[in-house]
């Protein structure tokens, strides 16, 4: 009989930027620790690969850590924990240099030093970039570097279905080996979740097919609260239909956003005056939440264009010229030519806001530790929070490194201090096998179609929990999602093969998405104010007297999630007005 029980010291779930950085961190901290890295895809397929624009870290003489901290905190509409932000900006340069030493092909100045570019909401140029495939190069540099550590054992294409928790301590996970259908327990002294975000709860997203929030749901189901889930970032410039991202770097290099009259409409939304050259923290280089909201208002005024896939505006890069476009943003040109049959050197690019990033996630502290002993998290799946109510572009790639490394280090310390594992893990494993068999693998008599349920969820989220929300829209979404979860119980899986059963995996992913959708709706319903990306038409102002706090969504059995709050950590930057372009 094949092996169904494995053991390691630190188990890392997810092998994107944060997971790989965490693995290297553990390997360097203590070469004697056995590291398991489990991922539902081969590591180089992870969604970090799609990040384009760059990664922020202070390195130039005219810049300062305080400037980076202030941009981040004001960009996050004062919902960031400032102790976390201070650590983040301080450790960012060191992390970026490490990645440089690991071979990341950063774009360079003529003198051979690393080049930086401007980015939205940043008042200094501090975004490191590898042309406009930054995430791709970071991921491959991390993955290839991780190969040199013999203490790392990978479980490629395994899907985790639950955490093993006993006596209040996380001690591993149960997972399906996708190629064979084998279900196994992987026991561990500590666990780090680095599984990415959950953009796939929405229909129109830049996120890859794999971004289904599995790790977030694992923690949530194990009793860990999800923090600030109401904050969903819409990126202002996605291609219609595909949702492919056109990087903010295209605006940082000087691109204009134009309405149907060819007018730079952002000037009407308190984002500054139009200048021919890009001005930091102004106009097209404002923060993503404000730009996406301006689009909605512009559409309401009837000043956007109409296409087969909804309203859109134009991103105009033509004045940048061929040389800048080819050197600085070649991938933008490649994507436009390949997917829209448009050459941005000669034509304007149709764009519209698109779901891009979850500010919220698994509640962690500055060490990546969750409230569940032995469980850590880092990257988009986690909420430290350095992103507050709106993440600044180019902070997320850096976050993977800083908090991936911190989570790795602290999970290593934790693992080294643990002795035995609970004797009940085998029994817990058998329980999970039984649950999977009953609910999915050997289920009969189901009638509901996966694609239909997914489509309905998309509609519910898009209509009720999008860029602007109201009490009414969120209550309707909540009722609809409860009904949909009921329908999901009668799901039909037509594929009963144990070999590479992608229908089974898609069903497990959908169950994760439904849990996450509900946490977004409930968190949004309770926050009766507008802050950053969470805009309530019925509560249009920010309300620091009541909501200078993080929401915490707790899962309840057969009930909607319970929402609690904890205060934001303020160190040196008292809440103020977000000022852009003036």
């Amino acid at each position: 009989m094949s092996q169904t029980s494995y053991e390691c010291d630190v188990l890392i779930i997810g092998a994107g930027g944060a997971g790989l950085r965490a693995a290297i961190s553990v390997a360097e901290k203590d070469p004697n620790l056995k590291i398991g890295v489990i991922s539902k895809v081969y590591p180089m397929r992870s969604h970090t690969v799609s990040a384009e624009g760059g990664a922020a870290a202070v390195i130039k003489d005219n810049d300062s850590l305080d400037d980076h901290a202030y941009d981040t905190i004001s960009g996050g509409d004062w919902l960031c924990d400032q102790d976390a932000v201070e650590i983040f900006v301080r450790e960012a340069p060191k992390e970026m240099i490490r990645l440089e030493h690991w071979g990341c092909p950063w774009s360079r100045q003529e003198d051979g030093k690393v080049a930086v570019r401007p980015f939205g909401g940043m008042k200094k140029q501090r975004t490191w970039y590898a042309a406009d495939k930054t995430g791709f190069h970071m991921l491959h540099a991390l993955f290839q570097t991780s190969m040199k550590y013999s203490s790392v054992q990978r479980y490629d294409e395994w899907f985790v279905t639950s955490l093993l928790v006993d006596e209040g301590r996380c001690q591993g996970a149960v997972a399906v080996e996708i190629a064979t259908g084998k279900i196994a327990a992987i026991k561990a002294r500590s666990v780090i979740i680095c599984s990415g975000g959950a953009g796939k709860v929405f229909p129109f997203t830049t996120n890859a097919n794999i971004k289904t929030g599995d790790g977030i749901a694992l923690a949530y189901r194990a009793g860990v609260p999800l923090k600030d889930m109401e904050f969903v970032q819409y990126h202002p410039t996605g291609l219609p239909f595909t949702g492919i991202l056109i990087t903010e770097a295209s605006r940082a290099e000087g691109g204009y956003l134009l309405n149907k009259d060819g007018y730079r409409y952002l000037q009407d939304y308190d984002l500054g005056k139009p200048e021919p050259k890009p001005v930091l923290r102004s106009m097209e280089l404002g923060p993503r939440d404000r730009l996406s909201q301006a689009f909605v208002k512009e559409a309401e005024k009837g000043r956007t264009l109409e296409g087969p896939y909804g309203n859109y505006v134009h991103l105009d890069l033509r004045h940048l010229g061929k040389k800048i476009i080819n050197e600085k943003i070649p991938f933008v040109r490649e994507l436009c030519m390949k997917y829209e049959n448009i050459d941005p050197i000669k034509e304007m690019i149709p764009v519209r806001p698109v779901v891009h990033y979850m500010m919220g996630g698994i509640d962690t502290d500055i060490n990546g530790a969750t409230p569940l002993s032995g469980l850590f998290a880092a990257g988009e799946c986690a909420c430290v929070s350095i992103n507050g109510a709106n993440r600044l572009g180019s902070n997320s790639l850096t976050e993977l490194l800083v908090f991936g490394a911190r989570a790795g280090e602290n999970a290593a310390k934790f693992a080294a201090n643990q002795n035995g594992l609970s004797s009940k893990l085998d029994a817990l494993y058998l329980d999970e096998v039984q649950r999977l068999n009953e609910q999915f693998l050997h289920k009969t008599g189901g009638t509901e179609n996966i694609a239909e349920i997914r489509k309905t969820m998309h509609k519910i989220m898009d209509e009720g929990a999008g860029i602007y929300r109201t009490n009414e829209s969120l209550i309707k979404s909540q009722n609809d999602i409860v009904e949909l979860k009921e329908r999901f119980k009668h799901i039909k899986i037509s594929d009963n093969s144990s070999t590479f059963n992608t229908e089974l995996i898609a069903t497990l992913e959908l169950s994760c998405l439904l849990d996450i959708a509900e946490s977004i709706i409930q968190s949004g319903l309770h926050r009766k104010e507008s802050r950053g990306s969470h805009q309530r038409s019925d509560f249009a102002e920010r309300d620091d007297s009541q909501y200078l706090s993080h929401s915490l969504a707790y899962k309840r059995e057969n009930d909607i999630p319970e929402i609690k709050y904890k205060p934001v950590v303020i160190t040196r930057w008292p809440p103020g007005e977000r000022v852009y372009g003036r």
Partner: protein
Amino acid sequence: MDDNLTIMAESITFEVFRYKPDESSEPSLQKYKIPWQKDWVILDALNYIKDNIDGTLSYRWSCRMGVCGSCGMMVNGKPVLTCATFLKKFLPGPIRIEPLENFPVIRDLVIEMSDFLDKLKSVKPWVIRDEQDLVEEEYVQTPDQLADYKQYSMCINCMLCYSACPVVALEPDFVGPAAIALAQRYNMDNRDQGNKERMEVLNADTGIWNCTFVGDCSVVCPENVDPAGAIQRYKVESASHWWKNLLLPWGKG
């Protein structure tokens, strides 16, 4: 041209390779008729089949923007990224979809590729330096030095080149185009000093000398990495290294 074709074709037939080892040891071709949309890539059509016609069809995909490297398949006999290949190119059909050639098939369109990861690891694709990594600042690398290896760093590991390579077909242990290009990516990076260590693998029986320079790898590469060029360049370097080894003692003498 597109609009005329749209009017002409309302549906298109897919012939998809099916292999379900749990049920049968023999593969077969299954036909699906799908509505034709002018904006669709091959992958959209496969997703349509999976969502609406046959949930049992298995294949890999993720980013749908040509950068994750998951969705390579044979389309009408050629290895392509299905997310970057439009349906309209193949009108009026039928379109034949098969798993990438030169790999064992796990199921349907899913190939077994863990062998590549072993090959990749064997060429030591990481920065090797003689001294300890203690520098507080970045290593200097001019734009020209970056340009020396940048092209080879663009490999997305999509496996199209292995599928196209006639040597891989005959000699499965051949390290292969992508892994050699990635070895060269580090060899040519001025921050790296690992050339000698990699040479052992690249010069071995399963290394570069297997390549007969057919060049199909570079033709099918969606990222213009030019593995064939990388291999040629390495052969020249390696040969001159051999000459130097032979000649230098004489010169010194």
